[in-house]
């Protein structure tokens, strides 16, 4: 199947390129738009971007493989990041991560068996004053207790979080 993107994503891409004095600068914003739509950055996607920006495919791959947020494989329906850095760790984030994985029957970095989540450890999310914190897709959950985690996992399992 040929590589295709939605019109919305194509529009976003057309909009970001002219913002920069040099085309390659738009690379990261384009990758964001594609990953948002497709969930990950396939090799086809990377080649498509290279062509769009008129740069060598390796320049795209270099970037995709450097930045932790870009991924070359799909994740679960929700991408969940548990902060593991100092202020969160001092406030129990390792336990929070264990508990979340237990509740979702998964392991860090893997897609849960029901496909609803991928839990990962992340580095400082710049919300250390409300530690421990967890990001579910774009949303930040703060000051979490183990009880909160049980509830959060329930909402994810029962699709109360869209």
């Amino acid at each position, binding site marked *: 199947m040929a590589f295709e993107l939605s019109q919305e994503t194509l529009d976003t891409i057309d909009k970001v390129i002219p913002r920069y004095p040099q085309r390659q*600068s738009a690379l990261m914003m384009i990758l964001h738009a594609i990953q948002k739509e497709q969930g990950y950055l396939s090799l086809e996607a990377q080649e498509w971007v290279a062509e769009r920006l008129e740069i060598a495919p390796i320049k795209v791959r270099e970037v995709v493989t450097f930045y932790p947020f870009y991924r070359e494989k799909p994740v679960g329906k929700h991408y969940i990041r548990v902060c593991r850095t*100092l202020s969160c760790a001092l406030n129990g984030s390792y336990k929070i991560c264990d508990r979340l994985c237990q509740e979702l029957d998964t392991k860090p970095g893997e897609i849960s068996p029901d496909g609803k989540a991928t839990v990962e450890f992340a580095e400082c999310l710049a919300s250390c004053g409300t530690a421990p914190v967890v990001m579910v897709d774009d949303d930040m959950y703060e000051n979490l207790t183990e009880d909160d985690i049980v509830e959060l996992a329930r909402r994810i399992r029962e699709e109360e979080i869209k």
Partner: protein
Amino acid sequence: MSLETHIARKNLAIHPKERRIILKHADRPDYDASIDCYLRNGGYDQQKKAFSMKPEEICQEVLDAGVRGRGGAGFPAGMKWKFLDRKSGKPIYLICNADESEPGTFKDRQIIHKDPHQLIEGMMISAFAIQAAQAFIYIREEMPYGAKILEEAIEEARAKNLLGDNILGSGYSCDLVVHRGAAAYICGEETGLIESLEGKRAYPRIKPPYFPAALGLYMCPTIVNNVETLCNVKHIIEMGGHAYAEIGKPGNTGTRIWSLSGHVRKPGYYELENGVHTYGDLINEFGGGLRDGRQLQAVIPGGSSAKVWRAGERFKGKLRSGEEFDWAIEDVPLDFDGPMAAGSMSGSGAVVVIDDSVDIVEVLANINAFYAHESCGQCTPCREGSLWMKKITTRMANGGAREEDTALLASIGDQIAGRTICAHGEACAWPTQSFVAKFQDKFLDKAKQDPEQLSKRDFRMV
């Protein structure tokens, strides 16, 4: 249970001793991020005033204000602007560093989410002052709403001709673009940030020759400043540079937004006049002190790369003014020079408090895991050293400590600092060097602890 998400939670209990300039409006319940709200509160008046001045005059005000960078290094902004290479004839760029990635820091988040137009106004004044051809905000990926809020605010400002073409009829044009990172700490380092903005891996560039003020974005003269620094520019125009310099202490002018986290009762952000309060005030008065039954073990005074202080230690020496000092941690002035005199730094203004409930070796192991993950990999000492330090301290925390580890750690740290392309080398070496030096007894003790028990411990940080 209240499991809710907030895009920008308001702090409705501002401490009466805070001196709020940058965060003056941000937490007001009736204040929002729209341009109408901003304009109702005097917004963009300073931009209008600045655009009636000469660019050199604005630069002079910023220099007179003595405002030091709030991103980490504390370099005076006016001086940095002076170093701009204006003779090359190449376009000049302004970049706002909104990567906010130093562990412990969450102050720029407040400005971006609650008062985005203040940042835009500060940036447009700064852009005009340095005659930038274009301006960028590099915001970390983990603030998706922040990026959206800024983009919307930029469109609002564009509709009112506050940025874009022929701004306010002045003949000066400058566009402002939001660029999102992708979860790499090293994008906070200004030359890594620039590479990233060029659509490449964030490999920092070596200085010299690549000082951004001469060879920055697209090898053009570039100024990179932190969010809070750029917001200050607006207030410098409002007050005048000399009047601004009256706030705080000489060489430490203005206010600072401190991010307080870790083992305190009231973690949070506090905007305080520089040099008026101490670390003791921040921890005990603003932060509400430690939790019940707990003793202070350590304080990290300026982000996780700052050298640690051990509870009970004393700092003695002579200030630049010639005055002698003999401080406990609690006496160190909350400003730029105080923590520096006490052998560390104020860095990004992030203070992490550590009580006696945790194992200090494990604290270092947690910090080391961060730096090992975030090294960009260009320099062997940083790439390999940060990994070794992580592996050794993790093994120690998990019950595999050996007598010789302490000396080994110190020697690795000593061989990184000063031998790398960027300051990530120091950032990863300083924690190990300082923890091992100050808590040597605890590190040596580790080898004597029962491995069985350590491996079964309930509370973990690695």
